[in-house]
């Protein structure tokens, strides 16, 4: 009974954890998966989003509501950011991996330090009425501070997936990943589409930030622990697959939860990366990916 209890709870919290990871990885699934831009600054932007939500919450606004409103300014920031990136690199030939990685790393450091200067290094959190209470179903006990952000993930992913498959702008975004030149022949401006996609990815960062800050307090460097994991999720999912992102994130979340429950929490961080190394060595296209 103890075993079943432990396993069921590990499964439930693993799925919840996976949903939250998926939300953090979603922006990267667009920038890296579709646009092939290795945006290592994404986790730092997620934390910046979390801080923006904390600011709104201090005025008594619900974090998720605040995040939904904040997607608009974050979208604008994303547009500007892409414009800078495009001017620095893409207009004068493709920047190589090293250079774009370095650029985004520099941006990530600046975002972190900006947060340190503005808010200090203390942990910040939000207050919501459901923190501290738990959802109970049979043997499963899941705190609401896990469950609520976890439920946000499937909703956001469904909306994004509908947008990508059912709307013109979404199709254009997938087309730009596929064949840029063909797209420009058919009368669309690939740069404008990519800028829009980047803005969308940055807007998703604030939603992910809200989810993270509901789960637990954040500090300016919290993004670093997510950096490797979100890349693991995107690669495992296979580039460009939005539903795959959720599935891959849940695989990693459940694996981590089981290792935490049955082995020791200190082995958990290695799990995502062991899975990632295995995937890269054996199936570089990811589980749900087509050829890249």
């Amino acid at each position, binding site marked *: 009974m103890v075993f079943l209890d432990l396993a069921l709870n590990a499964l439930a919290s693993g799925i919840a954890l996976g949903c939250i990871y998926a939300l953090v990885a979603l922006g990267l699934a667009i920038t890296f998966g579709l646009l092939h831009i290795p945006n290592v600054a994404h986790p730092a932007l997620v934390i910046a989003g979390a801080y923006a939500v904390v600011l709104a919450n201090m005025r008594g606004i619900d974090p998720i509501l605040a995040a939904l409103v904040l997607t608009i300014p974050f979208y604008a920031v994303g547009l500007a950011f892409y414009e800078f990136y495009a001017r620095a690199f893409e207009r004068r030939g493709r920047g190589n991996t090293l250079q774009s990685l370095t650029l985004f*790393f520099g941006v990530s450091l600046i975002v972190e330090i900006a947060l340190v200067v503005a808010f200090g290094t203390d942990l910040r959190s939000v207050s919501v009425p459901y923190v501290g209470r738990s959802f109970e179903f049979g043997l499963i006990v899941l705190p609401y501070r896990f469950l609520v952000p976890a439920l946000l993930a499937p909703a956001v992913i469904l909306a994004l997936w509908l947008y990508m498959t059912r709307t013109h702008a979404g199709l254009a975004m997938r087309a730009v990943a596929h064949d840029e030149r063909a797209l420009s022949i058919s009368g669309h401006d690939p740069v404008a589409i990519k800028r829009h996609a980047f803005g969308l990815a940055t807007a998703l960062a604030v939603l992910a930030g809200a989810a993270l800050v509901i789960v637990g307090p954040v500090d300016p460097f919290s993004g670093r622990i997510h950096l490797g994991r979100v890349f693991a999720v995107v690669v495992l999912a296979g580039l460009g697959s939005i539903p795959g992102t959720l599935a891959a994130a849940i695989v990693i979340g459940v694996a981590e939860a089981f290792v935490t429950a049955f082995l020791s929490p200190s082995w958990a961080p290695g799990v995502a*990366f062991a899975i990632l190394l295995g995937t890269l060595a054996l199936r570089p296209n990811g589980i749900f990916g087509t050829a890249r």
Partner: protein
Amino acid sequence: MSWRNFLLVALLIVAAGMMLPRALENPYYFFAGYVVLQYVVIATGWNILGGYAGYTNFGTSAFFGAGVYTAAFLIKAFEAPLLVQVLAAAGVGMVLGLVTGYLTLRIQGVYFAIATVALVVVLETVVHNSDYLGGASGLTTIAPPAPAWFGGQTQYVFCVMLVLALVAVGIARAVEHSWVGRSLRAIRASEPAAEACGVPTLRMKLAACAISGGVIAMAGAPYPYYASHVDPLSAFSLTIGLNALAMPLIGGTRSWIGPVIGAVLLSSVQQITTVTISSEFNILAVGLMLIAFVVLAPEGILGLVSDLRERLGGKRVTP
């Protein structure tokens, strides 16, 4: 510079370094200088794979940490002398490089970078869970007294690191000027084309991974003596991986001197800002420098110099 002149300069530098502990009173200079030299070794090692072959290794701290923990293990288990530690660390680094190379044979570009990040976390987790190596709280390593000439442990490890830096630069130079370096440059330009021309790309990549890994791990070996304490957080720090990539980029990746310039420049700036302003501004300075160089001078200082020469009338000098 011919090999004879290079060796001459290297010998002069070592001799000057050996005299320093007699000339300078304040051990702080050696404490800070050690870090600068450590980064010269790391950046030089990184550049063999990342610069010559164009494979961005994001997981430099995996190799550095492997070196640190190899040395710490040898101190704890056998009280092995420093030379043995350095050689063993280099050996472990080479093996780790080969393993990484084998695991990542099929992947390039960003994927290679991600795989190397994964390597860091996996190694860190293993060390974290190893009781013998002290786990999360780390291991205190007590060094035997340093030779009397140096007047202190810090001065001693500084001089050791100076020698290691020169060895590392020598290795990088030898690789660059040999057929290995030419093969790696061909791989960087175009892997399929290199393969078609008869370059054994697979073996060359593995060789570059092994040499690069060995040199970086070597940089970690004196660390237990330097810090007297090793812990997973500082041995596998993200900062090391970041610096390793930033320094060659700032200096220039095409030639052995580039990483040296970048490492001396960037780590001196870091040391100075940490002391004079704060460690936060040190990170900010790195971030700003990275962006400025990537956007304005993507070929680093070496690129700037050769542009300048070109503008002054001469033909473009490719280092």
